């Protein structure tokens, strides 16, 4: 450790730290290998850690500059060609509403169940080396057979990093949708109203989960996000940076860009027993940005107070944000 310190000047270390930081947060290219190499570099010397944290802290603070800009963000363009491809699928989904999910549940072979509580985060490694990361309040069941691998996402959100095998398809059932891996990393989030599938790497095939509708299958590519509600399905494109921020929970952070305060509060409430409440809709529509540790409810409320000029009231396990 001492040698590393003596060998490099503070300036060199600071430069190296800034390169790591920008690669990690801004380049849109960050692999698990990079993460490992960064951790090795950080562990090499206290000077490395300290220099990195200092810049990381500054860079996080600089996100607040974005909160000053109040104009509405531009909507991501919806890919119309894909919309057409999805129309047939959508019709099928409506027909199948109510039946297929239950069927998938009944035919489940012997399976293992995993879950997380509020605020939980857990990784499951399957026999084949595929990995599943469970976000807060999530329940899955997994069946691994010779003929294929199946996962039922019963509630919550999970990130899948799949070891692709043509002979043993990897399929995720979530409500009425069936997602089949075509060599990939993707995340599926299910709540009562909607299902969201975002593809980080590779491709997935999306079907209604009746098992016969291959002709209606849609292929989602890396960067595409499908959002399905009972009567609607849309696909949008998102940049790597946005996708990686949406997966911030894997690193323990939440990132917002021009997020409505009400939506940001809902997001925090997914993870924490201490709840944020925004009563006034005009307050809920104010926009905020920044990156926050998932458990930093209090700090988030303080930031909202400070940046947007609001007040906060603490009542038991609740923080009310108001004018």
């Amino acid at each position, binding site marked *: 450790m001492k040698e590393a*310190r003596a060998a490099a*000047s*503070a*300036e060199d270390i*600071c*430069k190296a730290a*800034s390169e790591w*930081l*920008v690669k990690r947060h*801004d*380049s*849109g290219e960050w692999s698990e290998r990079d*993460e490992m190499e*960064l*951790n090795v570099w*950080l562990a090499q*010397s*206290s*000077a490395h*850690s*300290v*220099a990195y*944290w*200092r*810049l*990381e*802290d*500054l860079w996080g*603070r*600089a*996100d*607040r*500059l*974005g909160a*000053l*800009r109040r104009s509405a963000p531009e909507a991501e363009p919806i890919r119309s060609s894909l919309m057409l491809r999805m129309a047939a699928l959508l019709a099928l989904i409506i027909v199948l509403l109510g039946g297929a999910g239950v069927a998938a549940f009944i035919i489940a072979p012997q399976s293992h169940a*995993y879950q997380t509580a509020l*605020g939980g*985060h*857990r*990784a*499951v*490694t*399957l*026999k084949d080396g595929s990995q599943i990361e469970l976000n807060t309040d999530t329940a899955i069941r*997994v069946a*691994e057979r010779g003929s294929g691998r199946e996962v039922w996402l019963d509630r919550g959100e999970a990130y899948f990093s799949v070891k692709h095998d043509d002979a043993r398809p990897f399929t995720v059932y979530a409500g009425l949708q069936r997602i089949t891996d075509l060599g990939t990393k993707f995340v599926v989030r299910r709540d009562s109203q909607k299902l969201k599938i975002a593809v980080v790497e590779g491709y997935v095939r999306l079907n209604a989960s009746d098992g016969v509708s291959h002709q209606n299958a849609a292929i989602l590519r890396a960067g595409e996000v499908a959002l399905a509600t009972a009567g609607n399905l849309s696909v949008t494109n998102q940049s790597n940076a*946005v996708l990686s921020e949406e997966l911030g929970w*894997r*690193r*323990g*952070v939440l990132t917002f860009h021009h997020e409505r305060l009400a939506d940001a509060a809902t997001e925090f409430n997914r*993870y924490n027993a201490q709840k944020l409440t925004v009563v006034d809709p005009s307050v809920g529509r104010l926009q905020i940005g920044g990156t926050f*540790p*998932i*458990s930093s409810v209090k700090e988030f409320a*303080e930031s909202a*107070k*400070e*940046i947007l000029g609001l007040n906060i009231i603490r009542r038991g396990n609740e923080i009310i944000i108001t004018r």
Partner: protein
Amino acid sequence: MTDTTEFSRGNPHGAGADPAMDALKQWFLREVLPLEAALMQFLRRSGRGKSEIEDLCQDVYVRVFEMAQKQLPHPVRPFIFAVARNLLIDRIRKDQVVPIETVAEWETFDIAFEGPGLDRVVIAREELRRLQTALDLLPERCREAVILRKVEGLSRREIAQRMGIAEFTVNAHLTHGVRALADMVYGDPASLRRKP
């Protein structure tokens, strides 16, 4: 089937890092980093060159951090200045040049620097203002890249297209930007008061 791993929340370096290290990091950011302005001012008074001062500042951080791994110092400020003073004295011994009056000045420096504790709200407001001022002081193209990234939220590729430069150059602007901002905001906030 299976290995499972429980992650601790609030760990910015992904899975598996040490929670004790994370607590130490939070302590460092909360207690030590805000003292950088005072520390740098103190080190600058030694009349040493810029890169030597930066090295000294880094050495102070490393020593404080390594001592904190054994036990968190409390209170922090006098501890940090004691470390800085010792490091400076070591350097002077090596140089074998001792300007007596300078040493005497150091002895009282951090006490004189102690002001009333600022309200956190005031600090947050002041910090945002400082950041904006620091941003204005960045070189033009560098500032543009930082604004496109941090304010507009564009990806590196989008920034490269917008500015008509290579993604590699965007990286160079951003890495320079974050270092320059940190040096101004943490290390030399006085520079931000002088230039509006």
